[in-house]
């Protein structure tokens, strides 16, 4: 039985665990049908031309993993941004873990999707927002069908959330392979501001496949800063489907740091439903071995006077492969749009490769849209210059790569994240860097 058949037949078992009378269940039933019709995407589809799921789909994943191992904070502390006070929503093998978490219902809700789906007091928010912007593609539908757990964050209006919120998923499975499908819903009301950090971490050498969906609603004048730290081990794969709906004058940014994992696919979608919206999509990818990272972005400019900024940097070593597919749609009504997109790549090995494709569909006539992509090697003259000052080859390379990533890091607003990312990059490059960026 292949994974698709297994998932479809597992849906019946899943229905025994959840409340089938809930209106959400109709959404789920609809979604499993969509998945059954479409199946997993193949390389025949334009959006999946350079990313094949074949090797990761061949494992016999357990679809309802049991939480097998209890974790102590000291064991996993390093995966948290632990030097700052924060809210935490932590899952082990898909199950909520209260002793590692710090949730709240004090003037806002930072809690669990399972609670939000079950309790009447959340019904209105769920009805208004759940699965409203996630697209009906096969992977998002698959997640929707099995949606039951994840983070639920609702920030009411005029609230500045002072502590960042960390959403962390651990996989510990002793089972041969596990599949996780977290579902997050984040609603930020008028004038509110929140910072969120998301991380998926496998603690096992067994294969892990995560297919996550996150819906984020930035309502009028809301500010949402989202950081994705992807530094998983090389038996773990992640398909991240994130959808952001912005209302007028809201500001939303997503920084994606991709350093690990076997296969990582980021489907990042911004919808600008209002005027004077600002959207930022930035990413640094540094991978080696046979790792694969695919950034598939969409910014849909629907109304006038909005901006979007995309800046993705990639460094690829060994036999690593990368994909950047950045789509910008500017509707006919969306005049005075400013849309910028840049994708710069460095290949440090002959066997590494990157496929980069900007895709602009512009229907308005008074807009500023720019895009640029570069693929190059490390600058030899800069290397000699640094080495002639006593900086050894390895460190000189690292310094150049830092410098290359600097544009993306400089817009990170939480200093501890910047330090952490700097450290991860240094570890990744096997050097000690004597300063913080």
């Amino acid at each position: 039985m292949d994974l698709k058949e297994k998932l479809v037949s597992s849906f019946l078992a899943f229905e025994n665990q959840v409340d089938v009378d809930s209106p959400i269940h109709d959404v789920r039933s609809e979604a499993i049908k969509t998945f059954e019709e479409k199946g997993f995407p193949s390389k025949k589809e334009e959006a999946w031309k350079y990313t094949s799921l074949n090797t990761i789909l061949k494992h016999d994943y357990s679809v309802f993993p049991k939480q097998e191992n209890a974790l102590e904070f000291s064991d996993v502390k390093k995966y948290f941004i632990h030097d700052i006070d924060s809210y935490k929503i932590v899952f082990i093998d898909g199950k909520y873990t209260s002793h590692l978490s710090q949730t709240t219902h004090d003037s806002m809700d930072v809690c669990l999707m399972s609670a939000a789906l079950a309790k009447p007091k959340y019904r209105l928010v769920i009805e208004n927002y759940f699965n409203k912007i996630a697209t009906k593609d096969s992977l998002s539908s698959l997640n929707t069908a099995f949606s039951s757990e994840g983070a639920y964050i609702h920030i009411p209006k005029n609230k500045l959330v002072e502590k960042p919120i960390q959403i962390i998923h651990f996989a510990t499975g002793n089972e041969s392979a596990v599949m996780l499908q977290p579902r997050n819903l984040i609603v930020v009301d008028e004038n509110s501001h929140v910072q969120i950090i998301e991380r998926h971490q496998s603690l096992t050498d067994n294969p892990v496949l995560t297919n996550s969906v996150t819906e984020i609603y930035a309502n009028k004048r809301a500010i949402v800063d989202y950081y994705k730290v992807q530094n998983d081990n090389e038996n773990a794969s992640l398909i991240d489907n994130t959808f952001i709906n912005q209302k007028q004058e809201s500001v939303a940014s997503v920084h994606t740091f991709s350093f690990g994992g076997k296969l990582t696919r980021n489907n990042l979608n911004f919808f600008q439903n209002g005027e004077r919206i600002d959207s930022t999509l930035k990413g640094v990818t540094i991978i080696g071995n046979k790792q694969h990272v695919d950034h598939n972005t969409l910014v849909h400019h629907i109304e006038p006077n909005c901006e979007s900024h995309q800046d993705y940097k990639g460094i690829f070593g060994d036999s690593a492969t990368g994909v950047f597919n950045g789509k910008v749609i500017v509707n006919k009504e969306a005049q005075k749009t400013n849309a910028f997109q840049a994708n710069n790549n460095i290949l440090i090995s002959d066997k590494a490769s990157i496929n980069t494709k900007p895709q602009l569909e512009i229907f308005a006539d008074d807009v500023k849209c720019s895009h640029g992509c570069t693929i190059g090697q490390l600058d030899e003259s800069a290397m000699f210059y640094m080495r002639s000052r006593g900086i050894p080859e390895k460190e000189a390379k690292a310094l150049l790569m830092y410098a290359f990533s600097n544009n993306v890091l400089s817009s990170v607003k939480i200093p501890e994240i910047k330090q952490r990312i700097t450290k991860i990059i240094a570890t990744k490059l096997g050097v000690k860097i004597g300063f913080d960026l």
Partner: protein
Amino acid sequence: MLKINNLHASVEDKAILRGVNLEVKAGEVHAIMGPNGSGKSTLAAVIAGKEEYDVEEGEILFENENIDELAAEERAHKGIFMSFQYPVEIPGVSVTNFMKTAINETRKAKGLEDMPANEMLKLIREKSELLEIDRKFLSRSLNEGFSGGEKKRNEIFQMAILEPKLAILDETDSGLDIDALRIVANGVNKLKSKDNAVIVITHYQRLLDYIVPDFVHVLHNGKIVKSGTKELAHELEEKGYDWIKEEVNA
């Protein structure tokens, strides 16, 4: 300190140096002059360890050690410094962070601990004053958007911090106005001692009014064809290089 014997070097199979002999002792200043394309910058780059150049014959001894097999950074750790004719722009790395890394990597190579932060700051402040470098300048990205004069001053600033035994100044005077030239020359002169040496590579005599050489050599077609004292520089300034070419051909 430096002894070059019969040095032949080429880049992409094109012979550029064809038997250079040169000896530089501690405390000396040598000027290497010559027409364009004579191999001056190649000589500097080969001493500094640029990998694109192949040494085909001869040897470079630094403090009696053959440095042919040493990487550029190892030569730097031994005390060889080259001021670049065209300093490279490195966006995203500030002057200060670059210097911190250079100092601490050099110390690491010598088995020393990192320099304490306050000592580092003091050193950087002291040397930036010597080169009349503004504090704000230090937090800018290395050489990015610097004027020609700022780039060259920054090179000598790096030299002042690294305190090399042998400094090779490759066309440091090109692109400098007279004020910048004076500041740069003053910096070099203040750093000079009986224990270190300087090789000034230049096309013109102008810089040599400020950094006075003990010896002047003329490089032509990859060979030193004439050596003399500072008067030779004046003669070249007056008469150009043609008479030397004729002398060589004769």
